[in-house]
């Protein structure tokens, strides 16, 4: 089996506010194999976004603090990387798409300038003008297939330490390339009439357009790993569907590994290969998306799935999970889900379950993991 692109190992992130410590992410472990789409779902405030921003170390530290754990990206532990070297990993290594499509674009710059900035970072790192992040001892070829159409410019040979004159020459021709590159990526995200869009400011574009441009910016750096933090949540349902369709098509084209954060099971079911469920800062279940949907191995996942409204069915009221998410600074003893769990027993109130263990009887190649003492029984008990 190939090395994973990203492997998060027992990661814990706290926020300090005054004397209080909020355990936003606790003991989370999962891996993303190359080319795979991993979805993370959970309610508001369960630590999804903290996890997403902790991976490229984007959280402001302080107040956030990585208490323990490792974030191994292509063989390098990002927790150990000094802060000033982190920008080298971002963008071309780990790309990111954010939730707010309006505020994620600089209001003072035209679309061209913003996308070109990303294109140039990739370009300069490729030709060795900017330092870039080289992974661990075994460089991993993440791009199984070069990007169609854009490959010509992007797949230039990497010549670190090349002749100065050659670099200067490339720098001169860089401007012309950038415009073509930007147009290519705008077309890639299915923006019609990209030439006029180039000269627009973000406030002149619709939410869907802005999100497409964000996607174009992230993709133009050809990241090994793309983190999408609720990219469709702030959009209208119809636009949401468009952007989702686009992302599904692009996943096949760009072949990056993707971490897709969402609160919407429907979105995750559309797009993800693996699914992780977070509750109160912990990953409580992880497995192939079909397995998790068919036989949830954690009572929280089961409750969530039953609470999803189904169309064409109206026999009785929707099921809900009683109670609410505990405050992350004051988690209950034992399993943090026990106050709301229909299957809770005495053991659950005192003994916190192990982080994640493979459920007995799941496939070895694609293990289904759960953090419930009674994971095996969840599937069978009604």
């Amino acid at each position, binding site marked *: 089996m190939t090395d994973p692109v990203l492997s998060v190992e027992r990661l814990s992130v706290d926020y300090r506010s005054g004397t209080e410590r909020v355990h936003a992410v606790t003991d989370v472990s999962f891996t993303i194999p190359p080319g795979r789409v991993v979805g993370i779902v959970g309610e508001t405030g369960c630590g999804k976004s903290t996890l997403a921003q902790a991976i490229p170390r984007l959280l402001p530290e302080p107040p956030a603090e990585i208490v323990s754990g490792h974030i191994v990206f292509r063989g390098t532990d990002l927790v150990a990387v000094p802060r000033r070297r982190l*920008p080298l990993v971002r963008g071309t290594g780990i790309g990111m798409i954010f939730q707010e499509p309006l505020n994620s674009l600089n209001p003072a710059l035209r679309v061209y300038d913003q996308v070109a900035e990303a294109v140039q970072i990739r370009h300069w790192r490729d030709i060795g003008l900017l330092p870039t992040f080289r992974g661990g001892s075994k460089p991993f070829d993440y791009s199984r297939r070069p990007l169609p159409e854009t490959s010509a410019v992007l797949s230039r040979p990497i010549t670190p330490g090349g002749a100065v004159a050659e670099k200067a020459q490339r720098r001169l021709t860089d401007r012309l390339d950038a415009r073509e590159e930007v147009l290519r990526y705008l077309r890639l995200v299915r923006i019609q009439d990209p030439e006029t*869009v180039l000269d627009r400011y973000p406030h*002149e574009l619709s939410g869907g357009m802005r999100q497409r441009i964000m996607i174009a910016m992230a993709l133009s750096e050809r990241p090994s790993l793309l983190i999408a933090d609720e990219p469709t949540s702030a959009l209208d349902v119809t636009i949401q569907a468009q952007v989702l369709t686009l992302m599904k098509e692009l996943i096949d084209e760009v072949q990056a590994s993707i971490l897709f954060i969402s609160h919407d099971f429907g979105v995750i079911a559309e797009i993800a290969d693996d699914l992780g469920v977070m509750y109160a800062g912990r990953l409580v279940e992880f497995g192939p998306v079909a397995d998790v949907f068919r036989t949830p191995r954690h009572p929280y996942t089961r409750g969530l799935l039953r609470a999803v409204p189904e169309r064409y069915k109206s026999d009785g009221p929707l099921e809900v999970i009683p109670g609410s998410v505990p405050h992350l600074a004051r988690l209950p003893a034992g399993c943090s889900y026990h106050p709301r769990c229909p299957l809770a027993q005495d053991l659950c109130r005192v003994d916190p379950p192990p982080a994640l263990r493979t459920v007995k009887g799941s496939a070895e190649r694609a293990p289904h993991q759960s953090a419930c003492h009674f994971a095996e029984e969840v599937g069978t008990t009604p």
Partner: protein
Amino acid sequence: MLRANPLTFLGFVLVVLLVVAAVLVVLSPQLLVPYRATQETKAYTVPPTLLRWPPSLVHPFGTDETSFDLYSEVMLALPLDLAIGLFIAGSALLLGGALGLVAGFWDRPGTIGAVASAAILRTTDVFLAFPSLLLALAIVAALGFNLNALLLALVLTWWPYYVRLVRGEVLAIRHLPYVTAARAAGVGELRILGRHVVRNLLEPVVVYFTLDIGTVLVSFSTISFVFGAAIAYPRPPEWGNMLSTFQVNQPITHAWWLIAFPALAIFVTALAFSLFGDGLRDVLDPRTRRALVQSQGVSAAPPPSELAQPTGPAAESAGGSGP
């Protein structure tokens, strides 16, 4: 596009006229200054009261007590006063702005930046604790009244406001999603500061700067006025200084024009920069810029694709002074 708002246009025209006039006065004075003062002609030869002439066709602003043409005197002072305003506000902007960027952008608890930031802010507190005009007066009094002391005093009292202004803007901008997004795209910290933070705080700071030039001129004239009476001839051509000497030598009831015209010069200059600053705000903000262009109907671009839903139809490619 500046014509969209008549007051903005007026401010723009006034500023341009003032700057052009100042340059002309320096380069070829004979065009705008009919009577050139030499040190010799400005000596008292006759009793001053006999030689004050009210405004006339020959002397549009009248003459002063040495029978010197007041219009020439006011025009001669123009380059100096403009240069003083720009120099003081500009120095304060550069010094205070740079310190404000440092104090805002690198102010993270537990870092060297936080220490530097605290040092900068406490220093500004010391300066801000005094009323700025009084502090400037005190500095001038301590150093002795001359042009250099006056400039130094005003720069010293002016920079803390820019620190506060710039730092406040930086603190507001640096946690906005687009800064995080730029960071996530791998943009370096210095580039983020220049392209994403400074570019977005430029608008309020530049507007404040232009408005400030007027304030600086008035303050400079005030200090110059306070100390100016102590100066003997030949006095430096400066509006505040002129007011001061005229006010002492000839009360306003006897020769109103000696007070009115230098004061008018200060007023017009301050007003011009204020209006100009207001207009700049509209021009610098991409949102209102497009609205201005649209209201004028300069150009109507073909309607964009159905995906794009622009708020303004105009897509003038050279949208004014581009970023």
